[in-house]
């Protein structure tokens, strides 16, 4: 009885020491620290191509994008984060055509499901790598994706 009692005490202490050994072994090995110094390393903190930061519409150097204003992304968005406002424009041939006026994207509502990007027939949308989204005013989270004065790239099928 007494013998068992002491055996329990010693095996208990041994188990505690085994655990201590693990923590102490880390204590003397600072090379195993993996924490990042976040605000300091902002310059080299680059995200990957697939990273889902926000939905963006890439523009080329002539301020042209590929969005035709078809509205497929708006239909496919599960929560109404996208709103397409289109306008009519008279083209060079004198015909009236529907073009995109504002591609409104509400970052605050987006669930980053990626359906808009996947279903866009002209690949006009992409993931942006920005991840610092904190703002003081939430209206700032509603963005217009097509830049001011931008036009549709030539050759994009309507």
């Amino acid at each position, binding site marked *: 009885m007494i013998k068992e009692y002491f055996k329990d005490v010693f*095996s*208990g202490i041994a*188990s*505690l020491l*085994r*655990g201590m*050994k*693990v*923590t102490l072994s880390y204590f003397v090995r600072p090379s195993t620290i*993996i924490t990042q110094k976040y605000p300091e390393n902002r310059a080299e903190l680059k995200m*990957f191509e*697939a*990273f*889902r930061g926000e939905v963006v519409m890439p523009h080329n150097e002539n301020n042209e994008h590929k969005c035709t204003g078809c509205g497929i992304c708006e239909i*496919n968005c*599960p929560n109404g984060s996208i709103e397409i406002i289109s306008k009519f424009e008279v083209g060079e041939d004198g015909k009236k055509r529907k073009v995109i006026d504002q591609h409104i994207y509400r970052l605050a509502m987006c*669930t*980053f*499901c*990626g*359906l808009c990007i*996947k*279903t866009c027939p002209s690949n006009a949308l992409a*993931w942006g790598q920005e991840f610092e989204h904190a703002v003081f005013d939430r209206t700032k989270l509603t963005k217009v994706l097509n830049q001011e004065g931008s036009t549709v790239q030539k050759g994009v099928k309507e």
Partner: protein
Amino acid sequence: MEQTTTKREDISSIDYQEFVINMGPQHPSTHGVLRLMLKLKGEIVEVVQPHCGYIHRGIEKMCEHITYPQTIHLTDRLDYLSAHMNNEAVCLLVENALQIEVPERVKYIRTILDELTRLASHQLWWCAFGMDMGALTTFFYGLRDREKILDIFEKTTGSRLIQSFNVPGGLMNDIHKDFQKEVKEFIKYFRKILPEYDQLLTGNVIFQQRTKDIGILTKEDAINFGVTGPSGRGSGFSCDVRKIAPYSAYPYVKFEEKLQTKGDTFSRYMVRMHEMWESMNILEQLIDNIPEGTHAVKMKPIIKLPEGEYYQRVEASRGEFGVHVISDGNKTPYRFKLRSPNFMNLSVMHHISRNHKIADLIAISGSLDLVIPDIDR
């Protein structure tokens, strides 16, 4: 007065005041907004009554109004720690209903991501369970290793936790070029680390005292209550969907379904520890053999399931996750029912924690590994 023999009844024969307290909805060890109404006699728990619904979002109802590809992003938000498996269940259901055969590459990648998700989930469970027992170190060690998996996810799927990476017919995009290398590096690293987990917690005398013979769930009860996953396997209930109804690349891999027979908190703990080893075995069998091919088959822009009822189940980290869809031929489901493992696991709470101390209740709920959004849906 009636003669009593056991010690516990002795205590109850003393006139302790009975009282009712609420544990939660804001309690650090319920890991979410779960409210347990406890009827106590002194320190002994007499009745546990879970009150769910604090984060009920009506996901099943919402799914009836959106198309099948759109439902996927909502299934992420059930059990967020097994988001990938939940996605997969919907995708498999749609693919089976339309009789689409996905490329082998997709099957392999899905299975690899499944097992990585399971590993990450069990790591988080391990560190939170240790913390519930008062071992703060485990929390940091578990999170440190989980971070490595999340980094792998982030590169390939774009998000760390709720990925929405599966789409009907395949995957959102192909894997990152470093994916295989990083997974192999991780396995090599984690094989060295996992014995440390055992040294830190499994062998610890305080931990053993607090978990052994606590919250015993018999095999019959596990079956009756529908407790699946590691919690069910801790009671010897062989319920691994990966074995019973293999999906994706599981038919191609060899792995063991580890069972424990005792059914106490420690058995449930051990099942999960073994599962981490098994997950690494599965990963090793698959990671070098990912076949070439496309990452998705072309689907019609509007997916309509033929009229009928469909059911698909997968093994999520906490048990069997099932999706039951009744389709009337439209592009939205007529009824979208989810069988979430945590709801069943919670139902057993009263049964196994009756007549235990209130501190044991924490150990029991930790060992069931409840994720509350999955319960409330």
